[in-house]
């Protein structure tokens, strides 16, 4: 809790340094942190891997963008509406996906995500197709990088707090039980399928929030944001950070995002770097950076 407040405080001081580049990096890193955290509700807490989480990110982003720009809604309506829409779509897709388990579940999430991508691609009149939806009307109040940064910081912090409450609630504990032993959990009276459905919906809702923030920040949404590569990336963020801890995804998002920005300055082969990172995680670091830190700490304590 204290660490969280300190981090928020430090971040709040960032714009005072006046470095535009740092503000931009921090804004986008925060958005990805929320996105990764939302996915971990599904992966870390419930134990269900989704390969199509970008779909809800994209829906949140596009919906907010379209409502703001095409329909001229005020932000105070567009943002919640976009988040709710992402949640609704997650609920609908989740309904189908939770009837299956494990790999089948994962594949189905991917298939649905590509469906969302396909719709975004084809529905040119509404989404702009592969040209993207550009020129998003962000309210004047948030037009400057610093002010948008504070807005993002506030929204992401609120999201993190809410997710923290949810993940540590009775609901969250039961999700962990579902992950740890779903047969046992059925036999203490829990409808495990409904729990997984709820987790899916919660995850999609917060991803939608991240997406809305993302779209407004970039003043545009592009179909790449719904492509499987975006889903792969956020998945790797969660795994890199460590899926069994709450803060893992936050760490993983920050590290991976900064790594990507850095790599893209030198080479076009970021996918290779990403692939190698994933290989390392799979072969050596399944519990991510947080897991690594814990293991090192344990070894130091023993020494």
């Amino acid at each position, binding site marked *: 809790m204290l660490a969280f407040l300190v981090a928020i405080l430090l971040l709040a001081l960032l714009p005072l340094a006046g470095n535009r580049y740092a503000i931009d990096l921090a804004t986008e890193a925060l958005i990805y942190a929320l996105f990764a955290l939302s996915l971990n509700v599904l992966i870390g807490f419930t134990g269900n891997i989704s390969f199509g989480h970008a779909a809800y990110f994209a829906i949140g982003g596009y919906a907010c963008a379209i409502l703001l720009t095409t329909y001229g809604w005020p932000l105070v309506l567009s943002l919640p509406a976009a988040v709710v829409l992402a949640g609704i779509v997650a609920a609908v897709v989740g309904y189908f996906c939770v009837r299956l388990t494990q790999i089948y579940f994962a594949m189905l999430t991917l298939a649905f995500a590509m469906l969302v991508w396909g719709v975004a691609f084809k529905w040119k009149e509404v989404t702009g197709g592969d040209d993207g939806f550009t020129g998003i009307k962000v309210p004047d109040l948030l037009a400057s990088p610093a002010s948008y940064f504070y807005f993002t910081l506030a929204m992401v912090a609120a999201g993190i707090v809410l997710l923290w*409450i*949810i993940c*540590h*609630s*009775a*609901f*969250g*504990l*039961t999700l*962990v*039980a579902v992950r*740890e*032993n779903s*047969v*046992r*959990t*059925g*036999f*203490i*009276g*829990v*409808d*495990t399928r409904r*729990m997984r459905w*709820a987790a899916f919906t*919660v995850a999609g809702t917060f991803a939608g929030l991240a997406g809305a923030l993302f779209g407004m920040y970039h003043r545009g949404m592009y179909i790449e944001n719904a492509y499987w590569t975006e889903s792969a990336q956020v998945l790797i963020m969660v795994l890199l950070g460590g899926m069994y801890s709450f803060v893992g995804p936050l760490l993983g998002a920050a590290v991976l995002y900064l790594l990507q920005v850095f790599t893209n300055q030198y080479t076009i082969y970021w996918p290779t770097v990403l692939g190698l990172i994933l290989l390392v995680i799979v072969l050596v670091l399944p519990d991510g950076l947080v897991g690594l830190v814990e293991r090192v700490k344990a070894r130091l304590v023993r020494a």
Partner: protein
Amino acid sequence: MSTMLHIQGLWKSFAGFVATRDVSFELEAGRTHAVIGPNGAGKTTFFNLITGHLRPDKGKVAFEGRDLIGLPPQKIVRLGIARSFQRINIYPRLTVFENVQVALIAHEHQQWNLFRPGRSLHRQETGELLELVGLAAEAAEIGGELSYGKQKQLELAIALASKPRLLLLDEPTAGMSPQETAETIASVRDIVKARGLTLLFTEHDMSVVFGIAERISVLHHGEIIASGTPDAVRNDAEVKRVYLGEQVNA
């Protein structure tokens, strides 16, 4: 005494192998009833058919008048039946405390509460249950690291957390030393008496059974070959043939 569990003409086959053969069975409320039989007799299958893990091919299972067939396990628990599993089925990576706490949370339908912190709920009751099964000292330990006997105790605690009226224990003393067996059985008997539970358990250790069961049914190759008071069963010719015959061949 009323009939708590009414089973009639239960059949179950697995690809041609008949695991449960025309089993009929009545369990009176408040009784302690044992189902015994050698390994492979179909005891666990029988339990699985009652608790919704398996669907019978034919037959009827009714609990307090309600038909159980087709209900998923979580609905069956809510009706008042809890069970332990023959192969340990706890949460190995959660602490002993959390193992029981989660069951209590679920029992109170609080798994849908997105806001109250999980760790703070039902702490007292969890402590009491752990005390009851003798695991109070191990509350902070990881479930999977307990000794086998203690894990079985944990299974019992989890089952009790669902506040059942009917308790099904699948081989509660399997793999235990004679000492542990005696302790477990004594503990179970006390708990059952104190809470007025109906107990249905399976065993293949005969001495255990004769100590606490008020009624015994003998399962052999999926069929019930004898059912009645311990004395009646002990003296049953068929039972003697099956058990003595098996012992001679063993």
